[in-house]
């Protein structure tokens, strides 16, 4: 059956407000399915949904957030075969290699899930100060983060850029790979059937060049990951993002090796450090 995939916004699967869709082909140019071609208004709606979800998501305990993310990994694994087929078709991988990629994506999700309740211990600090005060620095989520997902790595790359946003307690609007969007929409189906509250992650498909400038200039977006654009386009986006002093994560100079150890860079990119002074004794 010829399937037409939809967007994932606020926990629902709407068609694009613009009514457009585009044909998605496999690595050899054969038709796979139709995907919704998101517009700036879909991006706007997604930001509203992400903002609405931020209070609840950032307010849950780190432990609970970790449990919710583990659950996502479980559901993801339950649909492993579908992901393997989609990744193989999108990226032109042999079944065995596609399977390894999906397994790596599941592991990546679990790895980030484990970080939720360890961030404060590792990144926070009790600072020594010259006075009768406790001085504590703790990481806090940045807010609504727009993510331009990697163009080549349709699942492992996607998971590697969105999971750290969620693990830190921020909410996310992600624009999937333009040419390889199907694993992203299927990930949306996984998220909808796990315990992630609607709006915490919103997935748009379509032309990155069309949607990205609106997310970059949006005054209610607190950070943007430019991973899915090239360095030339990133300059204008960075300039637009400066309007409300967004956090900006620049694109890598060349396609990253997503199977490598991710380190903490992407986690710390979407965390702010809050320092409180508290009188000692009494």
């Amino acid at each position, binding site marked *: 059956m010829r399937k037409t995939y939809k967007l994932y916004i606020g926990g629902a699967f709407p068609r694009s407000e613009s009514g457009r869709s585009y044909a998605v082909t496999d690595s050899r140019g054969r038709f796979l399915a139709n995907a919704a071609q998101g517009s700036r208004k879909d991006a*706007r709606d997604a930001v509203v949904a992400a903002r609405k979800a931020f209070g609840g998501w950032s307010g849950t305990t780190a432990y609970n957030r970790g449990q919710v993310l583990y659950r996502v990994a479980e559901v993801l694994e339950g649909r492993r075969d579908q992901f393997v087929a989609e990744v193989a078709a999108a990226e032109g991988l042999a079944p065995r290699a596609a399977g390894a990629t999906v397994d790596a994506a599941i592991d990546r999700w679990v790895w980030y899930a484990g970080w939720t309740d360890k961030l404060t211990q590792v990144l926070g600090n009790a600072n020594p100060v010259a006075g009768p005060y406790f001085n504590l620095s703790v990481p806090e989520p940045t807010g609504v983060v727009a993510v331009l997902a990697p163009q080549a790595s349709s699942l492992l790359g996607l998971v590697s850029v969105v999971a750290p946003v969620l693990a830190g307690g921020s909410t996310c609007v992600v624009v999937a790979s333009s040419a390889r969007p199907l694993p992203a929409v299927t990930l949306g189906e996984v998220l909808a059937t796990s315990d992630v509250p609607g709006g915490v992650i919103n997935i748009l498909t379509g032309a990155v060049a069309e949607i990205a400038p609106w997310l970059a*200039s*949006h*005054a*209610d*977006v607190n950070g943007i990951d430019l991973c899915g654009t090239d360095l030339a386009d990133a300059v204008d986006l960075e300039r*637009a993002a400066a309007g409300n002093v967004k956090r900006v994560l620049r694109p890598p100079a060349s396609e990253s090796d997503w199977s490598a150890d991710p380190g903490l860079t992407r986690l710390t990119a979407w965390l702010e450090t809050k320092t409180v002074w508290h009188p000692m004794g009494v």
Partner: protein
Amino acid sequence: MTTAALPDVARDDATLRAFLHGLPGVDKVGAEARAATLATRSIKTTSKRWAIDMAISMIDLTTLEGADTAGKVRNLCAKARRPDPADASTPQVAAVCVYGDMVQTAVAALTGTGIQVAAVATAFPSGRASLAVKLADTKDAVAAGADEIDMVIDRGAFLSGRYLQVYDEIVAVKQACGPAHLKVILETGELATYDNVRRAAWLAMLAGGDFIKTSTGKINPAATAPVLLVMLEAVRDFRSTTGRVIGVKPAGGIRTSKDAIKQLVLVNETVGDEWLTPRLFRIGASTLLNDLLQQRQKLTTGHYSGPDYVTLD
């Protein structure tokens, strides 16, 4: 009060009932379809900008909470004067709508601005009190300086068919208002049918209301498009029968600029652009203003705005 074209329809209960029940019935499916069709109009760029400014200038900025304080009312008044402090070209709202005991505070904060002070009265929102209490409530608000009174009709009496009682009450309240404008709240969410909405609208206009208003904002559904359409048609027909021009105020549940612009389209297409003035059309709202301001900022700056760029109410 009667008019030349409608001699004495309120002379007794039977005549009034015969008149109200003689009004043509509302075609429910037709009204809903008409309202839905008009809602599909797309208003863009300069027209949108005009519509947003028009909608802002028509707002009755409202706070009707048990937890209202003088400070909150003063905040609201400051917002009414300068809805967007960062953009002086933003129009003022039409009025501030508060409970009777907050009228003095609002009047003090709005003197010289041209912004009206509206007070809800007559045991708002339920309307369950004796006529003496309702009249005292009204007189109290007028004495405190209210320019407009928003009264509620006795829905219990209306639904039981005691139309003359409702009529007499509105007449009495209108008298108690003196120079203040009277808006009559029909609370359409409790009236059950569009026929009742049409009858209540006519009743309120016959009794001398200057405005008819959909809802208190405390009941759902409130100002839906078909209800507004029925009320606008009543106002149009009333004018053609009696020559008197009555204002309309939807209130409750209008939260987005899109909703507000849809209502302006409905007004323009039903009663004409003569009604597109704060003198004859108001929108009762609180959160709507922030959405209009964000849309206005988007049109000015070219990028989407957010809730951090408008005031918290």
